[in-house]
C-alpha cells in the first residue's frame, strides 16, 4: 500500500486556499475575532470548534461576505475578498436554519443559484438532477420544503449550496437540528460527498465529536482566538493547553511542579504525601515550574493490586461509577480528596464487574500516557 497522506498543511510549498491575515472583527466595543491568522488548504474538511460566542460563526460569516473584517484581510485563492459582496463570491453557505425558500419546490430551491448565473436550460436541468442524485432526493424533487423531513431538508440545503460548485462550502452547524442517530449517519454522508466533489469544506460546530469525525483539521477557538489548529488525533492526544484538553473529551488535570528527570522526562510533585508522577514531554520545563498533567481516563488502568511495573501508580477507593453500556467510568477518590477518572471497556457482563463502590483500587498509567502542559 502506497497512499500519500493528505496533509498539505505540512508542506511548506502548498498554497493555502484561504488565508486569514491578522483578522480582527469588532462589533461596537466587543471583539469577536482577535488578530487571528489561519491558513486553510484546498480539499480540506476544516472544522471550527468552540463554545457558543467564541467567534466561530463570525469567521464563517466573514468568509461568506456577510461581515467585513475590522482589521486585516481574508484571501481566497490569493485574492483579497474583503470588497467582494456575498453574491459575487465563489463561496456558498449551508445555513444552520437551512434557509430553504418555502415558496419554491425542492427542485427550484436547488436550481435557484444556477438560475442566477443564467445557466443554459439543459445544463441547469442536468446539474439539478445530478445534485438530487448525489443527495438521494430524486423522489422529493416536486415537494415543498415543509412537506419533507428534517433530514431531507438538511440534504436539500446541502444540494443547493453545492449546486454552483463553489470553491469553498461553508457549513454552519449543519447537523444541529438532527437527532443523534441521524446525525452520525449524516456525518459520514457529508464526508463522502466532500470526497466525491473535492470541494473545500469549512464546518462550524460546537459538537467536538462531530468535528473529530468529519474534519481533516480542527481549530479550537475561544474568545475570538485560535487555541490550537491540528488534526483530530493531535488535538486529542497532544493538546497544547488545559483549555483544549478540557474542551475535547474527558480528561483528568493534575496540578503540580515539574523537575527534570532525564532526557525529556519530568517528575511532577503534586500533593503532600504522594509519590511524584513521571511524564515525558518534548516541551522544556524549568525546575520548579508549575505545570498541569493531563491524562485521558481511558489511558488510566484500574486494578485491585499495585501493578509491579507501573511507573505511575496511586491508590484510592471507588467513589462513583458511571455505566455507559460499552464503557464504565470509575471516579476514584484518592487519600487527599482528589478525584481521578479511569475508564475501562465492559468486556464482561455487569454482574461480573470487578469493582464496586468503596472498593480500594490502584490507578496506574505509563510515562507517555499523560501530557505535560504549562498552562
Amino acid at each position, binding site marked *: 500500500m502506497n497512499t500519500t497522506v493528505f496533509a498539505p498543511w505540512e508542506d511548506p510549498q502548498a498554497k493555502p486556499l484561504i488565508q486569514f491575515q491578522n483578522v480582527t472583527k469588532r462589533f461596537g466595543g466587543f471583539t469577536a475575532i482577535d488578530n487571528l491568522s489561519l491558513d486553510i488548504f484546498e480539499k480540506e474538511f476544516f472544522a471550527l470548534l468552540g463554545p457558543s460566542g467564541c467567534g466561530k460563526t463570525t469567521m464563517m460569516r466573514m468568509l461568506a461576505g456577510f461581515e467585513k473584517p475590522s482589521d486585516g484581510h481574508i484571501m481566497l485563492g490569493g485574492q483579497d475578498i474583503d470588497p467582494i459582496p*456575498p453574491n459575487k463570491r465563489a463561496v*456558498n453557505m449551508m*445555513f444552520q436554519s437551512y434557509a430553504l*425558500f418555502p*415558496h419554491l419546490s425542492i427542485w427550484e430551491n436547488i436550481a435557484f443559484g444556477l438560475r*442566477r448565473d443564467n445557466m443554459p436550460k439543459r445544463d441547469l436541468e442536468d446539474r439539478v438532477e445530478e445534485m438530487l442524485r448525489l443527495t438521494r432526493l430524486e423522489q422529493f424533487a416536486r415537494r415543498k420544503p415543509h412537506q419533507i423531513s428534517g433530514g431531507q431538508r438538511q440534504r436539500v440545503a446541502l444540494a*443547493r449550496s453545492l449546486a454552483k460548485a463553489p470553491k469553498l462550502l461553508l457549513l454552519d452547524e449543519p447537523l444541529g437540528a438532527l437527532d443523534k442517530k441521524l446525525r452520525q449517519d449524516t456525518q459520514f454522508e457529508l464526508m463522502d460527498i466532500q470526497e466525491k466533489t473535492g470541494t473545500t469544506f469549512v464546518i462550524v460546530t460546537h459538537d467536538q465529536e462531530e468535528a473529530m469525525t468529519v474534519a481533516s483539521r480542527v481549530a479550537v477557538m475561544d474568545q475570538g482566538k485560535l487555541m490550537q489548529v491540528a488534526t483530530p488525533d493531535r488535538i486529542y492526544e497532544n493538546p497544547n493547553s488545559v483549555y483544549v484538553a478540557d474542551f475535547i473529551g474527558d480528561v483528568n488535570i493534575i496540578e503540580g511542579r515539574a523537575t527534570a528527570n532525564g532526557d525529556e522526562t519530568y517528575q511532577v510533585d503534586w500533593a503532600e504525601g504522594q509519590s511524584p508522577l513521571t511524564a515525558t514531554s518534548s516541551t522544556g520545563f524549568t525546575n520548579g515550574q508549575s505545570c498541569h498533567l493531563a491524562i485521558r481516563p481511558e489511558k488510566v488502568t484500574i486494578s485491585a493490586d499495585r501493578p509491579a511495573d507501573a511507573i505511575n501508580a496511586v491508590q484510592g477507593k471507588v467513589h462513583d461509577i458511571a455505566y455507559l453500556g460499552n464503557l464504565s467510568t470509575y471516579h476514584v477518590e484518592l487519600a487527599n480528596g482528589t478525584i481521578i477518572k479511569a475508564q475501562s471497556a465492559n468486556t464482561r457482563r455487569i454482574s461480573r464487574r470487578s469493582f464496586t463502590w468503596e472498593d480500594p483500587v490502584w490507578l496506574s498509567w505509563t510515562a507517555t500516557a499523560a501530557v505535560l502542559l504549562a498552562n
Partner: protein
Amino acid sequence: MGRPGLAVMDGHGCGFAGELMRRALLIAIPYVWLLALFLVPFFIVLKISLSDVELAIPPYTPTLDLSQGWAGITDFFSQLDFENFVWLTEDDLYWKAYLSSVKIALISTVLTLLVGYPIAYGMARAPTEWRPTLMMLVILPFWTSFLIRVYAWMGILSNEGYLNQILLWLGIISTPLTILNTNTAVYIGIVYTYLPFMILPIYSSLERMDESLIEAAEDLGCSRLKAFWLVTIPLSRPGIIAGCFLVMIPVIGEFVIPSLLGGSGTLMIGKVLWEEFFSNRDWPVASAVAVVLLLILVIPIVLFQRNQQKQTEAGQ
C-alpha cells in the same frame, strides 16, 4: 370474549353522540350570531327592495299583515316584484356609479399598497425594541373619530388650507391648487384612512420571515434588489393579498370620504345609496342598490376567504 368488546363499543358510541352534540352546540353559536346580525337584516333589505315606494310610514308597500291569516301572506307575496332591479339597469347613473366605485377602489388599493408596503417593510426591519412603538403609531389614528380625521383633511386640502399655504410660502406654486372636492382628495382620504389595514397584514407576514432567507438568496448570487423581488415579495404575498382585500372591500361601498372630500364629479355607489335613502326617501330603490352592492362584494370576499384558507393550509 365478544361481550366485553360489545360493551366497549356501546360506551364508545354513546360518547361519540355526546361529542357530536357538543360540537353542534359549539357551531350553533356563530351560526345564530350570523343569522341574527347578517341574514335577518339582509332579508329585510331584500324584502324592501322588492316593494314599491309610498308616501307613508314606513315609506314602502306592501307590509305583512298577519291578522288576515293566509290570505294576508299570499297577498303580501303577490305584491312583491323586481321592478326596482329593472330600474337599476334602465338608469345609467347606477351602473356608472358601481363601475366608478370599483375603479376608485382598485386605484386606491394600488396606491395604499405602494405607500403601505415600504412602511410595513421598514417596520419589520426595524430593531425589535422599536417595533411595538411603530405598531402603536400605525394604530394610533384609530383613537380619534374617523369623521374628525376626514374633516381635518378638509382643513389641510382646501384652497386656503395648510398644504396650499406651505406650498405658496415655499414658492413652489403661485396660485392655490384645487385639491378638495376632486377625486385626488378622495384618493388621499382613502389612502390615509385605510393605510393601517394594508400595513398590518403585510407587516405580520414580513416579520415572520426568516432573515437568513435573504442571506441565502444573496449567497446564491442575488443582488439585494433581486433577493427582495425573488424572496421577500413572494413570501409576503399572503399579506399583500389580505391587505388589498381589506382595503378594497370597504372602499367600494365607502360613503363618508367621497361625500366630504369628493366633488360633484365623484360618483360612488355609497353616495348614491345615501341619496336614495335620505334625499329621495326611495327605500325600495336604495335597498335594491344595497343588494346589488352586496352581490358585487361577495366575489372579492369569497376570493379573500379562499386565500386565507390556502394560507392556513400552507402554514400547517
